[in-house]
């Protein structure tokens, strides 16, 4: 289970890094969303992977760590808000600048004008 889990997180991260390094806003936003999935999975695993246990100490011999679950929940909520904002921003950039290139296509001209 651990190996499969680790591979999943790794593949997600690798794909997201590839997408983030693209020069257009849409793939970058998708990449960042994917990275946040990978991070959430990773955070969840920091309490070690345990099957079929309650997050309560004392009732049974074994238990699962409740803290990473709380952390992941917070991270999901925050990540959701951030993703929503970045999508809106990307759409506005596309609308106002007429391109979804993250860098100015003619950056040298812009530098010269300043």
């Amino acid at each position, binding site marked *: 289970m651990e190996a499969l889990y680790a591979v999943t997180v790794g593949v997600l991260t690798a794909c997201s890094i590839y997408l*983030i390094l693209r020069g257009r*806003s849409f793939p*970058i936003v998708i990449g*960042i969303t994917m*990275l*946040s999935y*990978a*991070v*959430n999975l*990773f*955070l969840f*695993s*920091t*309490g070690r992977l345990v099957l079929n246990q309650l997050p309560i100490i004392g009732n049974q011999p074994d238990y699962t*760590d409740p*803290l*990473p679950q709380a*952390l992941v929940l*917070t*991270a999901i909520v*925050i*990540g959701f*808000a*951030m993703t929503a*904002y*970045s999508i809106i*921003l*990307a759409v*506005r*950039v596309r609308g*106002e*600048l007429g391109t979804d290139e*993250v860098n*100015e296509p003619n950056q040298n001209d812009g530098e010269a004008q*300043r």
Partner: protein
Amino acid sequence: MFSQHLVVLPLLIPMLAALLQLLPWGEEPQRYRRAIGIVSCIALLIVAVILLLQSQQGPSVYALGSWQAPFGIVLVVDKLSALMVLLTAILALPVLWYACYGEDNLGSHFQALFQFQLLGILGAFLTGDLFNLFVFFEILLISSYALLMHGGGKQKLRATLHYVLLNLTGSAVFLIALGVIYGITGTLNLADLAVKIASLQADDAHIARVGGLLLLIVFALKAALLPLYFWLPQAYAMTTGTVAALFAIMTKVGIYAIIRVFTLIFGEDSGASALLGYEWLWWLGLGTLAIGALGVIGSRDLRLVIAYLVVISVGTMLTTFSMNSERSITAVMYYMLHSTFITAALFLIADVVAKQRGKTASRIVKGRKMAQHAVLGMMFFAAAIAIIGMPPFSGFIGKLFILEAARTGAQVALLWPLVLGSTFLVMVSLSRAGSRMFWHTFDGKPGDISHPKGQLITIGLLLCAIVGLTIFAGSISNFINGIAYDVMHPASYIEAVLGEGYSHE
């Protein structure tokens, strides 16, 4: 009863103020919103002063919901946090006052976003555990995203997009770092981490060091250290003057986080993880200093010049910090106070200048005379002297502290030429800007846009803070010495959070 809950007030005040400001206030909402904002900032200032006085008796800990550390969430006020809270409060009041003269009408909800921004910044200074540091970082980031866009415009939009995407990636790295550290130590409380990390052995210590360095990357992104500073000049130069002035404290949040985490958790007594990242900070700080100086001399826009001055100050502070002595912490803290006020004042001056010059705006070219030429010229002159670091203002004292903090020959050989060289380049650049914009004006009648006196007074207040820092340099440096001692000897912090005898295990 009241004094017991004092610690949480710096968070509650801006949060309540922001919520009140969001209410529909009828026909003319802005008047009420401004009043609420100003009252909130004044209240913050009072609370911050009381906290500072209280922190003299040792750190106070506030356990939210009365769940005790290390399992519960705690807010901690020691001397360092108290000073940062006070610094934020002193900065916020004049900046908000300045914004109340119409700049807050450029976009919706400026006032509420301003308070949320304060909430995030103050929370980052007060929190006692790493995960809440992340949460407060996100609060300050999401309001800063919206504030950066304040006023709209294409240039701003692109700068904001860069800023947002970089910081989203930064947040992901922050969470990975938290996961790594939690996975090894099983705690995220700063004081508890300090104890646990110090006792790690072999492989576990290696993993903890990876987590620590990931944290360093995140904080360096916030602070704008060398390879991660590229977002800063554009973002700060494009946004409105008020927002840029408020953001004078934003890079300091990153520096505060570095000081807090890398002295408490990865400080001298941390066993296998001792003094993690100090070497990096030294070299990258020096690089930032050099790049910032080149940026200052190469910019042809006054606001861009000031943005690069922020980069220089970051480099200066982190390099000084990495020398790791009480003296260097004192120097960093004094310089931090100085540079926050002076950058904010300069951004506001540049904003006024840009508006009054009309078409040439803040570009460093010959332009027409401004309506309030003499006053602005005087203020720019005073601010320039202060940030260059010439006597008689606090910049001089700050640089003196920093130069004194270098002890070994190698430190002197690298730090002195870079600090003094950058000072020289800043002087050249600012004298060029000043003489072009204030002396070499076109003949003919001056522009007709003038600013209300109150707005100029707010800039005056920030400059007064600089004068105050200069006059009371002696007593302030005494107080900061106390901070430096506490930072270098974190036992009192750890004991305050975890209870007696914990740190000696």
